[in-house]
């Protein structure tokens, strides 16, 4: 079978999928909509196109993928959504459970104000319309870690709708070009988390811990405006940064505070959307893109081989690197939604509609929350570009690595070196070392103060930039030493003694008459060889520019 020929997009991938361009994408309706993704005016052409689709011709092996996401973010709160038991990641099993969380008869939900505020704040940050009236519903399914047999969610009228999330993708050979993209946000709904099941296959039993049962979740539904794993992963990363900036969720994927389900389909551009599959529980940033790309490829393969895509739920097996069909609770089912009878509608206010004399503890004011919005990552990046003359892609990297921005800011605060120099050192040298050893910023053996001191010495021209690199390597290897100590121990300071440097230059010239001849014959590269030899003689303690000047003076005399 010939590998499907795909139109280029998502650069940097070995295979690339056809991206639907923006103008056509906005014309599409609901996630499941089957409207033509081409421009509206083309609708009369469409049937013709469809008629020829049966027999593939050259150049028709193009597929476009459509990816939508459902992201569950655990709300960062002290207590659960509807009960006063604690929210905490590590605790003895079933210790953070109230009678309501265990669904004992006679218990009732009492809504946590903090969770409502977190949802409103997240909605505002994601450019949503906040619904001043939203409703709670019950979604039924049976699972041992869902003691009530239903989850309270917001199916009919969620708290926030119609938002958007902007993110930037890097393209080009060196990934130095930045393309801005937007994904629409359908809605944000408040809902309860379930408990956790530990499957003991050996003894054929399931252990249930309800500590997580009832923790507040924000379900953020992203419209299918993405077309590959990288776009989806980048959008999720941006959402994660926003949630963390807001403090509405810690959004730590490793601790399950951010969980992603992806809806994926492929189709030929200009034709109706294909049947979609849902890949559940993409709980690792690393595997998110891979799982989505695998599923896109699988669907293309299946269709190219004359197969058919089933509307099914799949999970990603990270050991095998592929998606597999799921059964169990995830099988398509009837959720039998009903309005939650124990919770009246949730009403929100703005400064205008705020009822006079209302108990401030009992009303949530949207305008007040808007005023409290902290700086969002996009603004932080813009500021870095403005303030430090950084490139947009550099600001992206600085925010994407956990703790790197803080490290950078600490170095900037303590050094007199140029911001551009600091940027380059932090993003190239420092981050390069971290990546090489697979370390987080917090695990770095070099502190921000040590780097600041080193950059100061470089700025004062106390050391050459080559020596600075060496000092950095030493700092990395010998935790606890200061740059100044290393410089004096290794005698790396620049030669301040002009005479000594001149002597070295003279000696080098005398030792290499052949090279001197070459220079005199007009070979422009010969001088570089001499500079190199002198630098070696100085143990990299002299700047090449100074050596060059000195040599030229001597050679011309």
């Amino acid at each position: 079978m010939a590998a499907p020929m795909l139109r280029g997009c998502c650069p940097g991938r070995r295979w690339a999928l056809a991206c639907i361009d923006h103008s056509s994408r906005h014309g599409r309706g609901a996630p499941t909509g089957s409207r033509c993704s081409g421009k509206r005016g083309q609708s009369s052409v469409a049937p013709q196109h469809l008629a020829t689709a049966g027999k593939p011709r050259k150049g028709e092996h193009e597929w476009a993928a459509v990816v939508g996401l459902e992201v569950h973010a655990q709300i960062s709160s002290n207590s659960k959504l509807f009960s006063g038991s604690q929210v905490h990641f590590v605790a003895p099993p079933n210790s953070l459970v109230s009678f309501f969380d265990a669904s004992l008869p006679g218990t009732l939900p009492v809504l946590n104000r903090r969770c409502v505020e977190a949802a409103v704040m997240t909605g505002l940050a994601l450019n949503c319309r906040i619904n001043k009236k939203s409703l709670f519903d019950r979604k039924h399914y049976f699972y041992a870690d869902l003691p009530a047999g239903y989850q309270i969610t917001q199916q009919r009228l969620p708290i926030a709708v119609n938002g958007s999330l902007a993110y930037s993708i890097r393209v080009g050979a060196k990934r130095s070009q930045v393309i801005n993209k937007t994904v629409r946000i359908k809605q944000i709904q408040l809902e309860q988390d379930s408990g956790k099941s530990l499957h003991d296959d050996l003894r054929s039993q399931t252990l249930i811990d309800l500590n997580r049962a009832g923790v507040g979740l924000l379900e953020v539904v992203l419209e299918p405006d993405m077309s590959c794993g990288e776009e989806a992963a980048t959008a999720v990363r941006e959402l994660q940064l926003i949630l963390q900036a807001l403090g509405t969720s810690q959004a730590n994927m490793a601790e399950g505070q951010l969980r992603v389900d992806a809806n994926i389909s492929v189709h030929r551009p200009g034709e109706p959307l294909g049947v979609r599959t849902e890949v559940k529980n993409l709980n690792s940033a690393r595997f998110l893109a891979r799982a989505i790309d695998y599923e896109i490829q699988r669907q293309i393969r299946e269709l190219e081989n004359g197969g058919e895509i089933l509307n099914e739920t799949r999970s990603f097996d990270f050991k095998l690197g592929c998606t597999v069909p799921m059964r169990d609770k995830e099988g398509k089912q009837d959720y039998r939604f009903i309005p939650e009878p124990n919770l009246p509608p949730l009403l929100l206010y703005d400064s205008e509609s705020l009822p006079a004399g209302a108990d401030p503890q009992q009303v949530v004011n949207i305008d007040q929350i808007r005023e409290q919005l902290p700086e969002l990552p996009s603004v932080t990046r813009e500021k870095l570009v403005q303030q430090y003359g950084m490139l947009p892609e550099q600001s992206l990297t600085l925010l994407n690595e956990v703790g790197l921005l803080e490290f950078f800011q600490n170095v900037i605060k303590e050094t007199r070196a140029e911001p551009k120099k600091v940027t380059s050192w932090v993003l190239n040298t420092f981050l390069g070392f971290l990546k090489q050893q697979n370390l987080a910023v917090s695990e770095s053996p070099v502190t921000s103060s040590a780097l600041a001191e080193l950059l100061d010495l470089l700025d004062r021209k106390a050391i050459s930039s080559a020596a600075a690199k060496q000092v950095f390597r030493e700092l990395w290897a010998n935790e606890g030493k200061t740059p100044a100590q290393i410089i004096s121990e290794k005698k790396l300071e620049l030669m301040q003694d002009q005479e000594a440097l001149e002597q070295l230059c003279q000696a080098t010239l005398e030792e290499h008459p052949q090279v001197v001849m070459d220079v005199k014959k007009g070979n422009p590269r010969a001088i570089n060889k001499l500079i190199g030899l002198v630098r070696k003689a100085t143990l990299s303690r002299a700047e090449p520019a100074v050596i060059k000047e000195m040599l030229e003076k001597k050679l011309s005399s």
Partner: protein
Amino acid sequence: MWARAARLVLRAWAGGRRGFTSKAEPQESGRVTAEVIEHLERLALVDFGSQEAVARLETAIAFADRLREVDTDGVEPMESVLEDRCLYLRSDNVVEGNCAEELLQNSRRVVEDYFVAPPGNIPLPKLDEQESFSQS
């Protein structure tokens, strides 16, 4: 086909719950087929067990169907009987929990402070054949 029927039965059940169902479709007959029973058993994890229970279900549906006799045209549905009440907001304080011992008394089997449940969640046999339930 049967899935459609199931939806009809469920709609009949949810007859009073507007907002979820559009205008209820007319009931085909008072009969509930074996397939529908099987589907309901799986959804609700209950065992109807006998023909008598099925007959009771049919009577209940017929009883609920009488709700259709009320003319509700032009009447705006209510969200809930509490819709004019204020939704009380609790401040975010930890005031409950730490009662694992009491809670675990409700469990027939306990392992190291975990509830013990059977593996999976669908006790009905022939799971593979039931996969087709998902298609409609």
